[in-house]
């Protein structure tokens, strides 16, 4: 049995280093929605510093959306996402996870899919798979910069287990990783999975779908000054130091605005707590979406992720397009 969260994200600094600066509150979607200090990294850190156990702060631990916005702003460089996952591991697994985790133990086939021969592999995740036409456009666009294979196994169950702090069977992990060894570039839709894959596949360049698509000249040139470009928060914060500069240069080139706050942190759009992700609590993206749009004069919203697209479409303020829809390549994406 492998504890992926633990093995890849062993935190160099833990909650005991928290100085109480509050910077994490400024960017936290849970804080924005609730203004409840106990549901923030600072609140959790202080409670733990003074002797609380994971069970004492369970609601706080589960409320985190793992958007990772807090991590780059933490001056103590506490690995806040890893810490939250560590705490989740110490809590009883939600019943809704039981089947998935049991399946990973028992049904994991020992024989992995054959190694992927392409230099670039796309792991689309369930939301993109659910929209085959958009997926087709994404692939078609990515092919422009080289052959791109579709990972048959995109680790969706692993991503969900990670989210819940569940333990992932070694065999399942092996089966998932084996075909990816030796692949030069892996494009991952799920930002949490992306974060965990980076240390597991050090030989591969692992980037998000947003970065992969927005790096294409055709996509860049289709961006307009009055677009609001919505960066997918998890992937961005997983590689913040590099990506903050990447998106700054995209801003300079394209002239559009971004869902970035003054700290250059991506304001998460579809931010979901664990109970919300498991369908145990109703989703309410209104607070975040209103905050992203407040005071901005925007004629079109361009998103990197399908979850963000669905959230903005439901909100219905202005037209929403996925990055892949910006370039007309003859395939339909509706």
């Amino acid at each position: 049995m492998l504890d992926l969260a633990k093995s890849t994200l062993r935190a160099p600094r833990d909650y005991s280093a928290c100085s109480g600066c509050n910077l994490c509150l400024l960017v936290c979607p849970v804080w924005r929605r609730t203004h409840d200090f106990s549901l923030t990294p600072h609140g959790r850190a202080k409670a733990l510093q003074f002797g609380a156990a994971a069970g004492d702060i369970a609601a706080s631990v589960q409320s985190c959306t793992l958007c990772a916005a807090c991590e780059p702003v933490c001056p103590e460089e506490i690995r806040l996402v890893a810490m939250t996952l560590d705490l989740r591991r110490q809590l009883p697994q939600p019943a809704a996870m039981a089947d998935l985790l049991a399946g990973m133990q028992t049904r994991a086939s020992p024989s992995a899919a054959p190694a992927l021969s392409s230099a670039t592999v796309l792991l689309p995740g369930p939301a993109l798979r659910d929209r085959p036409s958009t997926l087709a456009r994404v692939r078609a666009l990515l092919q422009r910069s080289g052959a791109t294979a579709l990972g048959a196994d995109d680790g969706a169950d692993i991503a969900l287990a990670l989210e819940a702090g569940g333990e992932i069977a070694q065999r399942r992990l092996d089966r998932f990783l084996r075909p990816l060894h030796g692949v030069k570039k892996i494009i991952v839709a799920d930002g949490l999975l992306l974060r965990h894959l980076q240390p597991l596949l050090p030989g591969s360049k692992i980037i998000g779908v947003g970065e992969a698509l927005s790096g294409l000249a055709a996509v860049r040139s289709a961006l307009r000054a009055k677009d609001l470009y919505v960066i997918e928060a998890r992937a961005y914060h997983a590689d913040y130091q590099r990506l903050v500069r990447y998106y700054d240069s995209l801003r300079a080139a394209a002239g559009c605005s971004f869902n970035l706050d003054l700290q250059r942190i991506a304001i998460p759009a579809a931010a979901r707590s664990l109970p919300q992700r498991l369908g145990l609590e109703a989703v309410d993206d209104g607070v975040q979406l209103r905050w992203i749009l407040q005071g901005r004069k925007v004629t079109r919203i361009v998103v990197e992720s399908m979850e963000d697209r669905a959230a903005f479409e439901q909100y219905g303020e202005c037209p929403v397009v996925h990055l892949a829809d910006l370039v007309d390549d003859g395939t339909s994406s509706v």
Partner: protein
Amino acid sequence: MHLHSPAVEPGTVGPCPVAPDALQGIKRQQTNPARWNGSNWNEFAAALRQQGIELRENAAARAAFATDAGGTAYGLAHGVVIARNTEQVALLLRAAQAYRVPVTVSGGGLTTEGESVAFGGVLLDMTGMSRVLAIDAEAMTVRTEAGIFWHSLAEELRRQDLDYLSAPLNLTSSVGGTLGVGGIDVNSARLGCSADQALALQVVTPTGDIVECSDTHNAELFERVILGYGQFGIITAATLRVRRYTPLRMHYFYYASLATAIEDLQLIDRNEASDYSGILTILDCAVNVLVAFDSLEREAAFMAEWRPRLRGYGEFGFGLRTFAHYILRPWKLGEAWYLLQRKRELFPELRRPEYMRDGTMFDRSVVFSRAVWKFWGSRQMVIPDLATSAGKFVEAVKRGNAVCRKYFPHYTLYLVGIKLRPEHRAHYEMSCVPPDAEGWAYGCEFEPMMDAGVYSRDYLQSFKNEIYDIGVDMGASYYRFGGMMKGYIRRVFGDALVDRHLALKRAADPAMILNRHVIF
């Protein structure tokens, strides 16, 4: 002078006997107050719940507020209430007054002397009231709930191309917590302290009345609540002046002498030569006067008229001078190495490319705040300070610097001027603004770097005492004004003034429930 050491009852803990040389003549008040004994708590808690007020009594909720940013004062509330609206705060204070339960208010909790720590009773977390209520871009004002962090306010204002006037550099102090204590920024020499930007306040008095006040309406309450250290009411909403947002252009001038740098800073301030000004040092070896400008015109005028009069070096010139200095003093190479390292770490942080465009800095408050927390923040922070008139400032800083040298291998001094507003004289009484200051007051924070060693609480306390003693000696004041160092308030202001304020406090707060340990 002799040290007065009161008799201690057997079996009780006496006054802390640290650093006798630092305590001459000081009545000891620097330790945490005794915890409130909890009488009537259950009845009080039941009364709150009956009125629909959520009171959290579980250990995790209370522990989260057990200390402030200073990390040297510890206290545990009996329960925590998150402020949600003004009426709820008023109900809470009425019940607290009736049951005589202490209420301690916490905004950002960024005090360093335990002022926002509850030693029993209720901890009221004001950050629950963090909404911006209205922005009036024509009148250039904002009405906001007072628990909001300055940074969150800046975020909202920026969507309309506006900015607040001034706020503490840490960004995560709250509007209410700052209006109550002062607030200094690198533009305070031009715009006054942060509290001066308040035009009107909504206040819940200690007896639970909701009162709107300003310079013209309930002016007496306004006078007492601004810079009032939470003694005369809880600020629940504030109307603040705002301004157009501008990115800025920044310059640094380097000095080897504190006195010369301070004289030049005061020259800049007196002549409003720059829009932002201050001094930040690495030890007392690299004394850095920073100036910044809201426009190219202001920058050009400064460069033409004032730059030639300043005695500071540019980066290259100072580098050469420092090299020559240390090459002749090889026994100080450790210090030279530290300066170099510090500069290497700090300066790139102040020039991160995502915040710079064509030499102009965007979002200076974020840049400064990140640097402040990254380079000066830690689980324990002692930042004693001195606030003096312009004339006394050089001496105060020199003396404080000598204390820093004595106690710590590494430290920083942060110095700024605060323009005083003659019409706010009443606000300034018994506050961080020294009584003899005219035109400008000057503040210096003495901040040791904790990274190099582990220091006992007693050692840190002794350091603070020595700095605070300078204030008593020179007739100055302090920016950090209450909590564990409140014993100094009587020493600097004298009994008559403090007792007059105490009488006002007793009249406003008969059961002495609101922030009872902060000042009196």
